[in-house]
Structure formats: structure tokens, C-alpha cells
């Protein structure tokens, strides 16, 4: 049984910005929050801490899924 990578919301946004390097992707915590609220990403939450499943996020944007 594989357990996916999880990151806290702010750390997840930081990682995406780090991958994009010099180009500003305009991907913010607020947009990540909207993705969670829309049900596109699994909402794993304890009080105000949101945990993002990074593998699930990357899977949405990989070619084989389309």
C-alpha cells in the first residue's frame, strides 16, 4: 500500500513556485484553497491546517490522465 506525499498548504505552494523557478506561475495559497473547496483535490484538514496530496495534484496535470 503506497502512502502519497503530503504537504501543508503553504509548503505545497512553495514547492510549485520552486519548480517554476524564474517564471511567476501566479499560483497562490488562495487558488490552492479554491481547488480544495471545489472538490478537485482531497480535503485532508485538521482545524485550520490543510494537507495537500502532492501526488494527486501532479496526477491531475500528467498526460495519461486526459
Amino acid at each position, binding site marked *: 500500500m503506497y*502512502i502519497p506525499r503530503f504537504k501543508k498548504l503553504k509548503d505545497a505552494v512553495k514547492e510549485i513556485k520552486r519548480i517554476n523557478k524564474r517564471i511567476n506561475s501566479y499560483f497562490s495559497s488562495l487558488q490552492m484553497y*479554491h481547488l480544495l473547496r471545489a472538490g478537485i483535490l482531497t480535503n485532508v484538514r485538521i482545524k485550520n491546517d490543510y494537507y495537500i496530496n502532492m501526488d494527486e495534484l501532479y496526477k491531475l496535470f500528467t498526460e495519461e490522465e486526459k
Partner: protein
Amino acid sequence: MEYLSLLDMLLLLKKDNPENPFSKYFVLAFVKANNIDYKIVDGQYLVNIKQFMEKVNPKHIDRPYAPVKIMVSHGFIENHNITHIYKLDQLLFKTILNQNVPFIKLKSLYFFNYYKFQEEWKKLRNIPIKTKNTE
């Protein structure tokens, strides 16, 4: 195997990815918040692993995925200085997304795979995308 203690659960959660930011407190709070089945034996919490995994990983992700460059449509317009030709390219932009590039539409925003988008853009326009940084 159906019921695991909090410590075993924590070891399991960190088995594949030791950097997962979970703690015993997280497991217990998550179990209580999501009505997951648990029992207390000799003062020790035992949690139903199947129900727990169904809540944490409902889409059954079974392997790691490589990181992807994710771009938001607003960012694309801003970075590539195409505001003045945006109306002309708007159709092209949507065509590319609909054909080959994995994307998500949320209200007026498009989130898409930037690597794939660049490839398709080059094929159709025969010019590379100029960024502000490279100009």
C-alpha cells in the same frame, strides 16, 4: 491488520515518504473529526486502517508522480507580455488546452501543464514563447 495503534499508523504514514508532516495528534484528531471507527484497549487507541485510508487517499493513488510545472492563465498572460494580442490568441489558447494539454478550469481560471503547453504552442505558431526574463 484491520486495527492499528497510533504509533503503527504514524510509521505507516511515513513509510514511503518520511517528510510527511503528520503526528500522533494529527491521526487522533483526524479520526475523531471524520467519524472513523476506533476503540480503546488498555488505554491505547486502535484505529480502523481501511476507513482511515479511504478518507486520506480516496482516489487510491498507488505510485509517486513526477513534479509538473503548473501555470495559471493569468500568470501566462503576464509573463509572456501578450496582453496586446490576447484577443487574437484567446481562441488558440483554448484550442491548445482542449486538445492536448492537461488542464483544470475553475471559474475564469485555467490551471495547466506548462511543459506540454509550450510544446503545442511551438508546433502551432512556429515560434517559441518569449518570456519577460529572456527578453
